[in-house]
């Protein structure tokens, strides 16, 4: 007779009786003096868990704040002018150090003249200032047109024909700064 037959052949009364026998099974005796030993183990002072909890909490909060600051620094977007100059400006590209991934055999680009470098620095500074000003102006409804104008100046200075055309087409109520590059392009 297998387990299934055994189980199914027994009525519920027998099962209940078996369960009752289990419940009445004598329990191990409690050793004398156990309660006293446990009572002696009770801490005399309130547990120090609160202090212990406060320490790690403060440490965790400081760590989280430091991590957040570090993350903000790392993820802070670079100013648009710097981004565009780093990628678009031919003079800046010429001045930049050769990339680590560039092949060693590649002939080095000819050194730019001092005048070119000075011009690039000036353009970079002007573009950065104009774009930063555009960002500030954008925050005010009355300054949005001026911000748009600033951006067009910068874009046209770096060869964006659409920006240059828009700049020529529109009336020029405000010229933010005199732009040496615009006279060329």
């Amino acid at each position: 007779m297998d387990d299934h037959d055994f189980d199914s052949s027994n009525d519920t009364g027998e099962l209940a009786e078996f369960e009752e026998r289990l419940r009445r099974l004598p329990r191990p005796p409690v050793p004398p003096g156990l309660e006293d030993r446990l009572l002696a183990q009770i801490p005399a002072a309130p547990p120090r868990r609160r202090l212990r909890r406060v320490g790690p909490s403060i440490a965790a909060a400081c760590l989280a704040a430091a991590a957040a600051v570090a993350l903000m620094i790392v993820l802070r977007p670079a100013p648009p002018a710097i981004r565009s100059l780093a990628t678009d400006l031919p003079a800046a590209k010429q001045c930049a150090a050769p990339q680590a991934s560039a092949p060693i055999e590649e002939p080095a680009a000819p050194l730019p003249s001092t005048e070119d470098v000075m011009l690039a620095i000036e353009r970079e500074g002007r573009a950065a200032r104009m774009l930063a000003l555009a960002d500030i102006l954008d925050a005010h409804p009355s300054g949005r047109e001026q911000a748009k104008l600033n951006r067009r100046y910068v874009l046209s200075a770096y060869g964006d024909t659409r920006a240059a055309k828009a700049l020529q087409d529109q009336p020029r109520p405000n010229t933010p700064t005199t732009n040496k590059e615009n006279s060329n392009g």
Partner: protein
Amino acid sequence: MEAQSAERLLAVRVADGDRHACAELVHRYHAQVYRMMATLCRDEHQAEDLTQETFAACWAGARGFDGRSSLGAWLRRIAYHKFIDSLRRRRLAPPPATVDAPEPVDPARPVDALLADEAARNLRAAVDALPAGGREVIVLHYLEGLSFREVAYVLDEPAGTVKWRVSAALGELRRLMKDAMET
């Protein structure tokens, strides 16, 4: 509901380091915790050590009692975790039985008493012979008198799984008893 509130209040007082509350907790539950440990461990010294560890953990973590279960079930849950930890520490199977159940003998009916004692001893041996998982649920449900829900809380398993395990362990237990009677 009142009993639950009283238990929660007792747990809060224990968490606040109230020595009287701690003493009350020991007085109420030390025997239950020790007996459960002794039945699971089958070693009275280890059972006593684990009982002490259980109450020490209780003093430190009484604030963790959330009232979802009875205080007794919560203590048994801590005790059960201590038991599992001890098994992991030893990395050994539970040692052979050294805890003797009391042997009540009625002088007026010595034969009946001896027969009853013999049956109880056989049943105890069968419980001890169960695999660990089956023994746990039998001990907690039948010997400790916990409901399926409370056993589920102690073992951190769904109540349905516990019911199935109890049923399977009961079948195995009856098979062991039948085999013992036949041999």
